[in-house]
């Protein structure tokens, strides 16, 4: 009794667990239940039940309602598909002027709009691509194929790789200085001599369109949300869902709307990259001290000046993090959008992975990562750049970078021209090193992989088997053994205990959506994989974070490592694990663990750092030793921040689990991947994406509510 009085919460949690387990044991597994079954399939099967909704027939395997809820939302994907089809092909037909045929043509509005967007995007990408690589399409856009055909000189020549390399080095020098310039030069030379020039430039042209557009739209919406409460309220739920929505899931509907190719990839990238940019812009603008705004107003700023000369520069730290995020997402999407036909390194990477050519995949992955790091650093340097007003400079000094660039363009072109005489076999190495003529280390890596397999096969296989048989299978069985009702009780109960009735309702709604969709079993598998990844990641991240926190230099070093790892596109993580573990669940899980350990480590260090020095000193003066200080002072105070890290860890883990579908899992991600090649895939993909997003949001809601209360309780903000 004493215990109950002292810890009423603990008792409540205990009670909740008792009910949960009681339900689990009370509800039997139906005899007909098998993991693969119970899904809505479009194949007719005499054992299936069905219901009709909005004139659509939804088929499913019926179970006891306590065991699995019927898929009452099974109509949703079908309905989404039909609506999309209707929007694209039938809704609001209007007359549009067609300049090619010089006639009016009747087309549905949405179709026309998407086609217009498509052509703008295509034009932008082609423009940059042809500046870098040469081609015809930009000129065609202004004239016609016939005209280009009859004027053979009308062709974008493209820049020799030497010019691009020198140009990026000069730009890096102007932005930051010698260090970055050398890095930029080395990266470009590496890309060129390893024969990755063309795909790299294709990827770069894609990113040079996607990243600035995402930045502009994110900033614009962020400002709109800052200015108007109504806009913010309208955006908020979308932002929330998009934060936990796996990138795969966006591919499918975009495929329907915009078709296949680079332009669709840019649009999808924007859909994924804009939300974090909006959030960070909003966060930054909100954090501008009111007195700075007043100072701006008293200086006589009008609204426009106030926004662009006072608010945004003052909020630039958060906005910069946003830019950083945008760039990261762009590179991540550069790979993923290869699924819908975007050209470039991502495509090569996917192809290589598909052929299990680890060496080639590694080279492409390395190139993407290097360009990502380079652009990341350059954008940072750009934002921190200052103007010096007191230089009494000559014309040459003032414009030396531009002059240098002009000179390199000349030299590069002359070299490339000379090269065309020098290299006879039709390959001008001073213009572009062709893919198959560059140095390739692929063989080396492939041999290495083979060697690892030959040498360690027994051990790897033993570890693999042990992990799957002893840990993963039982864990998965446990998750699948949970009756739907028991899971609901557990989740809703947790919501109630943490955040009261409001939280309980939110969580209940999110869980019900998944439970009523046809993919509850898949969602359980996704959750189990994510859970496993999160637990291991947290243990590693927590330990590494705590240990490196003991020393200032090691902490900084660790944060730097996190930064770099975060810049890698998520797909790249699959390469080394496939190298070691082949195509198994273990590979996916290890990729998940590596990827999700980043936020776990980062937030642990940051949390421990946020403990005020005064408290540190106070603790030291009370005579605690290092260990006591850690356990009694630092952990309790850093815990809320570390829990936010847990939140991020969960999101990262879910992302990677879904991406892992590429290797072959049997969870929601796999179905999203399948939806990509399904003509009715849009609705399914979107619904599945929402399911994954909701899994993330359930945890997000619980953790954030708890952290909020805890912080209030501790008086830190």
């Amino acid at each position: 009794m004493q215990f109950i009085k002292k810890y009423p919460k603990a008792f409540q949690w205990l009670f909740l667990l008792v009910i949960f387990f009681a339900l689990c044991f009370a509800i039997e597994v139906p005899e007909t239940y098998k993991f693969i079954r119970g899904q809505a399939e479009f194949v007719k099967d005499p054992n299936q039940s069905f219901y009709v909704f909005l004139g659509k027939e939804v088929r499913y395997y019926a179970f006891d309602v306590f065991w699995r809820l019927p898929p009452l939302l099974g109509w949703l994907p079908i309905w989404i598909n039909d609506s999309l089809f209707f929007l694209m092909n039938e809704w609001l037909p209007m007359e549009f002027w067609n300049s090619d045929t010089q006639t009016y043509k009747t087309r549905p509005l949405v179709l026309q709009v998407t086609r217009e967007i498509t052509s703008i995007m295509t034009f932008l990408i082609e423009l940059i691509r042809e500046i870098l690589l040469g081609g015809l399409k930009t000129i065609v856009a202004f004239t016609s194929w016939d005209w280009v055909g009859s004027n053979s000189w009308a062709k974008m020549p493209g820049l020799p790789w030497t010019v691009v390399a020198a140009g990026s080095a000069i730009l890096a020098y102007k932005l930051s200085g010698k260090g970055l310039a050398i890095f930029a030069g080395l990266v470009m030379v590496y890309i060129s001599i390893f024969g990755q020039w063309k795909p790299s430039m294709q990827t770069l042209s894609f990113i040079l369109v996607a990243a600035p557009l995402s930045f502009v739209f994110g900033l614009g919406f962020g400002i709109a949300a800052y200015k108007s409460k109504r806009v913010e309220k309208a955006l908020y739920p979308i932002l929330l869902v998009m934060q936990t929505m796996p990138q795969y899931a966006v591919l499918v509907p975009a495929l329907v709307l915009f078709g296949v190719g680079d332009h669709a990839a840019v649009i999808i990238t924007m859909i994924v990259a804009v939300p974090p940019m909006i959030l960070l812009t909003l966060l930054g603008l909100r954090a501008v001290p009111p007195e700075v705004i007043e100072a701006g107003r008293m200086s006589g700023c009008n609204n426009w000046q106030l926004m662009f000369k006072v608010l945004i520069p003052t909020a630039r730290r958060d906005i910069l993090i946003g830019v950083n995020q945008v760039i990261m997402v762009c590179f991540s999407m550069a790979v993923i959008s290869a699924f819908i036909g975007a050209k470039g390194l991502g495509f090569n990477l996917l192809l290589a992975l598909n052929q299990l050519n680890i060496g080639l995949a590694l080279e492409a992955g390395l190139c993407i990562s290097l360009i990502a790091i380079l652009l990341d650093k350059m954008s940072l340097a750009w934002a921190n750049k200052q103007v010096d007003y007191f230089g009494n400079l000559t014309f040459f000094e003032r414009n030396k970078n531009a002059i240098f660039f002009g000179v390199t363009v000349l030299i590069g072109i002359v070299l490339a021209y000379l090269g065309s005489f020098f290299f006879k076999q039709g390959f001008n190495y001073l213009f572009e090193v062709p893919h198959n003529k560059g140095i390739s280390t692929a063989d080396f890596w492939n041999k290495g992989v083979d060697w690892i397999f030959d040498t360690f096969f027994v051990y790897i296989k033993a570890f693999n088997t042990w992990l799957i048989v002893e840990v993963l299978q039982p864990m998965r069985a446990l998750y699948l053994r949970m009756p739907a009702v028991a899971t609901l009780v557990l989740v809703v109960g947790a919501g109630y205990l943490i955040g009261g009735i409001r939280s309980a309702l939110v969580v209940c709604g999110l869980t019900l959506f998944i439970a009523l969709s046809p993919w509850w079993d898949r969602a359980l598998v996704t959750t189990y994989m994510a859970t496993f990844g999160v637990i291991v990641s947290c243990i590693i991240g927590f330990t590494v974070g705590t240990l490196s926190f003991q020393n200032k230099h090691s902490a900084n070093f660790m944060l730097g490592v996190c930064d770099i790892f975060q810049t890698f596109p998520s797909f790249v993580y699959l390469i080394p694990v496939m190298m070691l573990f082949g195509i198994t669940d273990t590979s996916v899980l290890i990729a998940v663990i590596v990827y999700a350990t980043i936020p776990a480590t980062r937030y642990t260090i940051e949390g421990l750092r946020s403990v005020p020095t005064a408290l540190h000193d106070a603790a030291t003066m009370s005579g605690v030793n290092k260990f006591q200080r850690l356990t009694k002072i630092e952990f309790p105070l850093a815990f809320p921040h570390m829990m936010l890290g847990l939140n991020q860890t969960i999101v990262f883990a879910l992302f990677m689990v879904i991406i892992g579908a590429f290797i072959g899992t049997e969870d929601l991600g796999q179905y999203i991947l399948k939806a990509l090649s399904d003509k009715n895939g849009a609705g399914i993909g979107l619904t599945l994406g929402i399911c994954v997003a909701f899994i993330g949001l359930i945890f997000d809601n619980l953790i954030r509510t708890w952290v909020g209360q805890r912080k209030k309780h501790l008086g830190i903000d």
Partner: protein
Amino acid sequence: MSNTVIKCENVFKIFGANAEKMLKESNGNVDPKIFQENGCIVGVNNASFEVSKGEMLVVMGLSGSGKSTLLRCISRLTDATGGKIFIEGQDLLKLNNKELIELRRNKMGMVFQSFALLPHKTVVENIAFPLQIKGLEIDESINKAMDMVKLVGLEGRENYFPRELSGGQQQRVGIARSLAVEPDIWFLDEPFSALDPLIRKEMQDEFLRLQDKLQKTIMFITHDFDEALKLADRIAIMKDGTIEQLDTPANIVLNPATEYVRKFTEEVPREKVLLIEDVMDTSVTNNLSDFKVSKDETIENVAEKILTQEKSVSVIDSNNKVVGSINPTKIINTVFGGRKNNN
């Protein structure tokens, strides 16, 4: 009066959803308690006063007294809920956005408690900022800003960033920025409150030197009564949104209007604040000792000499003309009399 620069008539600022409606219904008779029960908070309650050209009005009050809100009404950073505000005869509340911006670009400067410097700009860029906003060429604005840098004594640091400066230096930048457009009206919102005592004193002296030179019309907000006494031509003491007393420092010290004001004046060393002029007797001009004191001396400086005289001492103005007299007992009464806790 053409000399009036700022004029407030029955200014109210009430925060809350239906503040305007409630203010209308109250007929200018605002009881904060009733408003609070209805979810409104009274920031400024019926403030009326004038500030004339070249005058420094110090608004003094503790936190939450509404002094900053009053200042923000007059600079129209917030809109007053009721009443009228005139700046050089212009009705401030009737200005449209464009006119308001013009007014701020040319007539007003403001200094903030937390300095409110732009973190991404250097010292000289910060100071040049209002000029550039106004539309000056970069070079010209930088040149003007450099003059301001010299004025506040920050030469050699013009290319520093705010984060590289101490608090006192940052506030010098804030002051220079507010003066860059050469405004007539100068608002200072607790400019020295965030500074260390020694720096604060130094900045106050610096501020007086500047004001001596520039002769701006000033509204100065502070929570420090000593600071108010030291700087002000007139002081307005605020409590719960209401101006309790508005008078010269001497009158406030000598004749506190309310109990609340008296509490502030209790600990004030009067001999340091009051001038001979404030306590002299203008009716008696005969039968005086030969010793003469200037009316602009503080009591502290001349008390010893006056107390050694037997008769009243004659008080002269700057033209050596006798304008009044002062009796040694008056000095004793002023300095030691009328205080509580005399044991």
